[in-house]
């Protein structure tokens, strides 16, 4: 690039800074009883790029719609927008809007619409940062919006039953979104992704929600990392998506007949690494999940660590720890097309004569008793009866019924 061109770029930059500085400086303060008593009034005056500061107080009144782009709406001293049980609170229909430090409360329940405390419609690049949501039907609802970030919000609901409850962070046709470091409790689904490709969920805590901690459908190429899902009614469900990466999440305490630490349904080409499954009725349930790499995960104290349905194909389990589970692996089929190699099993009783770190005798993780229970759940009453151990031993000596599934190189020491 020639010197002249560099000068041109410099001039444009200087001009841009000079122009934007006075505009960006527009600052409107919303204060009850002042000339600007509500956010709606402030929005009438605001130009693109303005900052609106909302001071402490409770604000009621009709739903507010933001149509001015590049706004920053900033709460000072946690101003509260109160829906009085009747309406949505804030709707954003403009690009690059930031909402920070507000409290949204009490949208009420609606059976007619998915009422959301904060809804973003067909916008790009919004930032929903550090707000509080109390008793919202839906808290944050991104609808056909692209590249938005929902970060550090504290979302709490009273945990009403599923039919009268909505989701914490709800993404619908909103690709490239980022949901980071939020805390969500007592909603229906903590985080919900639908038709939102290329999105990210990181560092969220989703606990005690009525249905799923994370509910994930038709969203390809998403990542979720270092989230913690605990005590949610049905655990976490990830369905009908490709190329998903799940790294370092905790799936904890999902208990009940329809609860799974993690349910993978029709998932292909995904990666599951360094996750922790503990205290679930079923740790990982795979239904129609194929070509997955399942590596370095911890399965501890679950009823079933892994349940593989017959249609789960071509997945590879390596370097996982299986400890203290009532059943390590269960399946409804005799032929399994997934493989386990080099995992650590607390039930392994083999030896390692050649000292290469892995046992010389293959480990068969599917217990005979697990097969019986798979067919007749009532048989679970016999859990830890001596008879089940006898059956397992008999099956080990004359393996006729359990699937040929075996870990050919079970680890002698825990990998971590």
């Amino acid at each position, binding site marked *: 690039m020639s010197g002249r061109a560099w000068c041109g770029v410099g001039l444009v930059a200087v001009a841009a800074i000079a122009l934007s500085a006075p505009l960006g400086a527009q600052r409107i303060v919303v204060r009850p009883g002042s000339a600007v008593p509500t956010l709606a009034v402030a929005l009438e005056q605001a130009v693109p790029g303005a900052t609106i500061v909302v001071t402490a107080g409770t604000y009621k009144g009709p739903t507010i719609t933001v149509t001015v782009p590049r706004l920053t709406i900033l709460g000072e001293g946690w101003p509260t927008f109160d829906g009085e049980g009747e309406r949505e609170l804030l709707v954003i229909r403009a690009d690059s809007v930031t909402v920070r430090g507000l409290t949204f409360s009490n949208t009420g329940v609606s059976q007619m619409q998915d009422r959301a405390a904060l809804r973003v419609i067909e916008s790009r690049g919004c930032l929903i940062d550090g707000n509080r949501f109390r008793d919202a039907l839906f808290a944050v609802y991104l609808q056909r919006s692209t590249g938005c970030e929902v970060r550090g919000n504290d979302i709490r609901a009273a945990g009403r039953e599923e039919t009268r409850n909505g989701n914490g962070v709800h993404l619908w046709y909103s690709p490239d979104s980022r949901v980071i470091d939020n805390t969500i409790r007592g909603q229906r689904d903590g985080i919900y992704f639908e038709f939102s490709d290329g999105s990210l969920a990181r560092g969220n805590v989703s606990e005690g929600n009525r249905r799923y901690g994370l509910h994930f459908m038709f969203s390809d190429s998403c990542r979720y990392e270092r989230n913690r899902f605990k005590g949610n009614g049905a655990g976490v469900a990830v369905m009908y998506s490709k190329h998903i990466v799940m790294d370092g999440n905790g799936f904890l305490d999902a208990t009940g007949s329809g609860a799974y630490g993690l349910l993978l349904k029709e998932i292909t080409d995904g990666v599951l690494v360094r996750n922790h499954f503990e205290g679930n009725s079923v740790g990982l349930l795979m239904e129609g999940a194929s070509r997955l790499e399942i590596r370095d995960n911890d399965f501890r104290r679950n009823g079933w660590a892994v349940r593989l349905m017959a249609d789960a194909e071509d997945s590879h389990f390596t370097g996982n720890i299986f400890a203290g589970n009532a059943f390590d692996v269960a399946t409804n089929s005799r032929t399994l097309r997934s493989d386990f190699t080099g995992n650590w099993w607390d039930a392994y009783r083999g030896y390692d004569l050649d000292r290469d770190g892995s046992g010389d005798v293959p480990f068969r993780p599917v217990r005979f008793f697990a097969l019986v229970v798979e067919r007749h759940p009532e048989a679970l009453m016999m859990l*830890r009866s001596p008879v089940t151990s006898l059956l397992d031993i008999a099956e080990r000596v004359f393996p006729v019924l359990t699937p040929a599934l075996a870990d050919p190189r079970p680890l002698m020491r825990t990998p971590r």
Partner: protein
Amino acid sequence: MSTVSLVLRAGVRDLLRSRWLLAYGAGFWAVTEALFLFGGSGQQVVLSLLNAMLLLVPLVALVFGTAHVHASREFTELLLSQPLSRRSVFFGLYLGMALPLTGAFLVGVGVPLLLHGAATDAPRLALGLLAASGALLTLTFAAIAMVIALGVDDRLRAMARALAAWFALTVAYDGIVLAVVSAFGDWPIERPMLAAMLGNPIDLARLLVLTSLDATALLGYTGALFRQVFGTALGPVIAITALLLWAVLPVFVARRSFLRRDF
């Protein structure tokens, strides 16, 4: 009443001199101690201890009880020749055998628990239930042993029957239940299953301890009725009541056969 306590004391003194009883208590002590030292997490310790308890307690109570009743046969006959009520002699004999056994079990399990209990993350409630149900099982199987020993004079035969009873209740019973479940699994067999569990004290003890652990969640997997029974306070109450009944009923059967028996 003083006759009961006299016979009881004689029995206890006799048993305390027996090396078998000491070995039993010491064995449980060693097992519990080893589990605490090498058994992994607290939950694992409880589960391993539960397995050991369910196998050993009925076996030892049956074998030891049968042998003891036969061994003290002459003493019993001597007592019965005295102007003592048969009832008192019976209770003295039974308690003189059952209480030292219970004591040995409780000491064997309890002392390591007291020593290590504070240091482990083992659930207290489960450990307490384990100790309590072990004690109740001892009472039950000591009484069953008496029934067997009073019914069969031949020592070897009585021992064989005791072992058969142990096998029947620990292994065969559960095996049959499992077989029935596999055969009739398509019918609603939850209620009969629950009834079957009430019919075997060993199963009751197992479920009682299991439900106080996280395994409740797992059992809750099986269906509404089990959740209803074992997911709530009702389950343990039913199980404990049934276990108590199981501890008392065989004693009355044994008493009956003792009172009617021609020595």
